[in-house]
């Protein structure tokens, strides 16, 4: 059964790749525009080996993006959880920030970038700031919803038994809201990743996967463009499986808050 599930998706993928390669080989499609699997592979390998004694260009691009995503996600997550808890526990703070978040959320990071380029200049400061903002919204929103869903009886019980506010927060609110917070983290980190790549298109000085793809597109080096997108897929897939899966297993699964 799982055998079938693993093999079936490979059929269209294999057909697609073989078809792509053959049509490019026989010049049925313009290989300069559409590239081909073998060209993509060659271009990526070249990018990896060209600067090699000192450093691999490809790995430096990947590393730059991952580093930015990490820092932006870290800042955005901390701010988001704190903001969410404040919004969840205080009615006035919630009423104030709810509309602000609603209006700011649909603005894509790439549209905010020109403004931050003026304020902070090209490169890391702009990319990380916009990434952190993108991370913040879904996490704050979901954390607030989670905190609000907490059974007030439990809070009162904890307070009666002498728990301090911080204590209540850590041992009542956060475990109860964990499911919400986690789905906020998922959304937030996914958005962080997308935003960082997008902002790298217009705000990166010289490194990053977004910069790599954009730079290659301007010189119509299509192999690098397609290869870059392939890398985006694989890296995201790996991060999602490794990170989110582990966190879920360690927290809400273990606490029996979702059906496994």
């Amino acid at each position, binding site marked *: 059964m799982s055998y*079938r*599930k693993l093999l*079936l*998706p490979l*059929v*269209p*993928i294999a057909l697609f790749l073989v078809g792509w390669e053959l049509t490019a080989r026989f010049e049925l499609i313009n290989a300069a*525009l*559409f590239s081909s699997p073998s060209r993509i592979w060659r271009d990526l390998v070249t990018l990896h080996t060209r600067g090699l004694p000192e450093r691999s260009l490809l790995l430096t691009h990947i590393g730059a993006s991952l580093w930015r995503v990490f820092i932006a996600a870290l800042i955005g997550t901390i701010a988001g959880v704190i903001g969410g808890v404040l919004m969840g526990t205080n009615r006035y703070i919630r*009423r*104030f*920030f709810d*509309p*602000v978040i*609603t*209006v*700011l959320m*649909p*603005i*894509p990071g*790439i*549209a*905010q970038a*020109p*403004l931050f*380029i*003026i*304020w902070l200049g090209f490169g890391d400061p702009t990319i990380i700031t916009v990434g952190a903002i993108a991370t913040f919204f879904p996490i704050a929103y979901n954390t607030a919803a989670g905190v609000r869903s907490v059974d007030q009886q439990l809070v009162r019980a904890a307070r009666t038994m002498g728990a301090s506010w911080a204590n209540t927060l850590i041992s009542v609110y956060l475990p109860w809201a964990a499911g919400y917070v986690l789905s906020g983290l998922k959304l937030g980190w*996914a958005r962080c*990743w*997308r*935003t960082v*790549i*997008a902002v790298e*298109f*217009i705000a990166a000085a010289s490194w990053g996967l*977004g910069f790599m*793809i*954009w730079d*290659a*597109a301007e010189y*119509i080096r*299509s192999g690098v*463009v*397609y290869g*870059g*997108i392939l890398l*985006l*897929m694989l890296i*995201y*897939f790996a991060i*999602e499986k490794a990170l989110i899966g582990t966190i879920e297993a360690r927290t809400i699964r273990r606490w029996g808050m979702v059906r496994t």
Partner: protein
Amino acid sequence: MRRVGPRSWMSHAYSVAEFVLPFLIIAGLWELLVRAGAVTSPSFPAPSTILVKLWTLATGRGVLWKHLSESLYRLAVGYALSAGAGLLLGTLLAMQRTLREMFAPILSLLISVPTIAWVPVFLIILGLGDRTVIMAVFLGGFFAITYNTIRGIEMVDENHVRAARIMGASGPRLFAAVLLPGSLVSILTGLRLGIGYAWRALVGGEMLSAMISWGIGKMIYQARFWNDVVAMFVGLMIIGVSGLALDRGLLRWLERATIEKWGMLTEG
């Protein structure tokens, strides 16, 4: 049930006021800071300056409407395509098990790529103009709509499907009479998410496509060359408000007209 009368009008006005108030407070404080001379940098223009700019752009030669209408045109074309294709493919994959097992994993791989990352590909293949932006909008909406259509149809009660089958419904009949109504909540969620993604893809696509000269995204991008922070703020305001209006106006209305009216969703 919607109540018509002075009371519902009052509560409506109240919630609008509650929504606008935080922005007034923020703008007021900011204006004060600028007026008092605490903020003097031209990179942080006062809200009044931004409003004046908005007014000049919106009246007179009306550049703003040209930007906005071009954007909305691209959104409409791209989104209509993605809704059509997403519903079709979603239904197909949900009803054909082998096809679903073949393509669902591929779909989830493709979803993970930021829509904006496809733009360079379209720029290479489709050129630097309108087609690239519309394609980005299409792709932005497509995945969310497809995914939620599959999920919705999968969640339809198996017994209803069996009952319909026994009574002789199949193919399009089965779809129209059982599967579509049963999955409408999820499909509408997809449509709603889809328009949000499509809107973001639109703005990004417009910024990156060199050959187009109109559009809200383009307006912000062009402002960059003149370091025109005021125009950027106007653009961002329009993007935020229009995104909200699309979501609340169009999709909320659709929800009200269908699933809420039919009692499939309790208002929350």
